[in-house]
């Protein structure tokens, strides 16, 4: 086993047990002093609620009638580069709507700045979900990282956060750009998305049933959607079930039709998720 220190031709090298331990020709990954670190012990990643609409099921089993009122979560994309857009609605469009997902901007959040020479971020995050959305049809959205313990997101800065069937949330810590010699910004970027089921049918891909008159089944076409433009009818890209808002029967009390004497009723629930904890970002340099 060789342990040695070499200094020759502008190169310094430390050999430990035959392996290179230090070499000025293979620069070390450096982390800048603690005064340059971004430390936030109240770090919060807030994912707003998804936009939702309604789906109503009316059944006629042998024991009487039954109903279920669900929220449905339609095709939408949220992120720091998305623009404000509303998808087409059914059976008539609201002004300004165009084909494609409903999109909303989630602005980048400045976490701080790091020295101009930074090209490496060491990012340690400890987060716990402090606002948990209610159970969807597929259950409570699953958190995809270890909560309450320190994880390392230094390789790329990305962190998948939640999934629940056809929905997804993630965040990213991104090193921004700046003029030469100026401190570089570090941003939190948030993304959330819901799948496009691409049908005018009701949940389950059933035909829209005339449940206010003479049919049983699902209907999602006649209920107002929730969005920050006010909503109008239902989005074309139906039908992923969100949360169960009401369930009645089967019994002989009324017809359970939406316009009947004993309907299912309810209001939409927030699907917001909030993660709270701490983040330590140590800037540094590699490839020097």
């Amino acid at each position, binding site marked *: 086993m060789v342990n040695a220190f070499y200094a020759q031709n502008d190169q310094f090298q430390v050999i430990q047990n035959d392996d290179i331990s230090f070499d000025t020709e293979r620069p070390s990954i450096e982390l800048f002093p603690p005064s340059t670190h971004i430390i936030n012990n109240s770090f919060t990643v807030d994912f707003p609620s998804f936009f939702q609409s309604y789906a109503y099921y009316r059944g006629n*089993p042998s024991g009487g009638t039954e109903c279920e009122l669900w929220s449905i979560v339609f095709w939408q994309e949220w992120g720091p580069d998305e623009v404000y857009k509303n998808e087409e609605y059914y059976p008539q469009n609201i002004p300004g709507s165009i084909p494609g997902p409903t999109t909303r901007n989630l602005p980048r959040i400045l976490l701080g700045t790091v020295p101009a020479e930074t090209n490496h971020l060491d990012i340690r995050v400890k987060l716990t979900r402090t606002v948990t959305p209610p159970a969807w049809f597929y259950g409570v959205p*699953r958190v995809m990282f270890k909560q309450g*313990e320190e994880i390392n997101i230094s390789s790329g800065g990305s962190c998948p956060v939640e999934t629940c069937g056809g929905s997804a949330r993630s965040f*990213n810590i991104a090193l921004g750009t700046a003029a030469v010699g100026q401190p570089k910004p570090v941003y939190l970027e948030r993304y959330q998305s819901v799948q496009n089921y691409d049908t005018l049918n009701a949940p389950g891909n059933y035909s829209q049933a005339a449940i206010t008159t003479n049919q049983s089944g699902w209907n999602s076409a006649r209920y107002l959607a929730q969005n920050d433009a006010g909503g109008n009818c239902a989005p074309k890209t139906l039908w992923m079930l969100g949360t169960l808002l009401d369930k009645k029967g089967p019994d002989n009390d009324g017809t359970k039709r939406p316009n009947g004497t004993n309907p299912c009723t309810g209001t939409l629930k927030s699907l917001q998720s909030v993660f709270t904890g701490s983040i330590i970002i140590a800037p540094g340099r*590699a490839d020097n």
Partner: protein
Amino acid sequence: MSVRLYADEFRCAIYEEAPGGGDPIDPTSLMNRPVMSPMSWLANLRFHSDLDYYGVAAFNLSIPIAHSAVAGATVANAGGISNPIYYQFNSATQDQLLLTHNLGYVPKFYAVVDGKMAPNSVPVQYESVNKIRFASVYATTTEIRVQSFGFTDNTNLSATTVTYGVMVFRTPNAVPAFPMLNIEASGLGVIFGQGKFVGSQPHLRVVGPGDTNFAVATNRTVAIRNGGFRTYLPNGTYFDYGSFNGSLAAPTFRFITAGV
């Protein structure tokens, strides 16, 4: 310009001298500005005791972990019996030990999966777009552990064994009892900056000839679209989970090693 090694009782630096000349043993001479003002002369530095480094405190690059199968989803629970909507999503987590370090504080670490430096929540098993297992490696004051998240549809996600690796880095505080500079083949060995670098604890560096490479992404590795995920691995391939139908340019990777 020459590369110099400088040490006094306050600091230790290996650096390319700055322009302007002067007395090499005078820390205030122009050539020694990287010693006295390291943050203003970062490009000249090869080591400085004011900076921190990833000194390896413990490692194991071959840790086989057996992950259990995840049962497929079964029940239909919406729409009654005449218009049912089937539940086709299930998940399960497992929490398992990778390495015991007993450092007494939560250390920095890097995880390796199948020889690749792994981003957090890296996919470690992929059977289809709806059947996938992610792994989130985390640190405590005594251990490095992995929590895995298996997702599936109405069929089982198989059991599997994944080979993980871990490098644990000590928090590089200066040790007052250590010298600012020590060079000897035995005893304390090589020490720079009162232990900011210790020869017996190689640290992360960019690769050179003959090194074993690991890759660290320098930008975003995960995208979501249409309710699904795309996640890049350090070898440039990616996994799509769920209904992802977007795009994400391959991130750039920096190749590093730790001489372990």
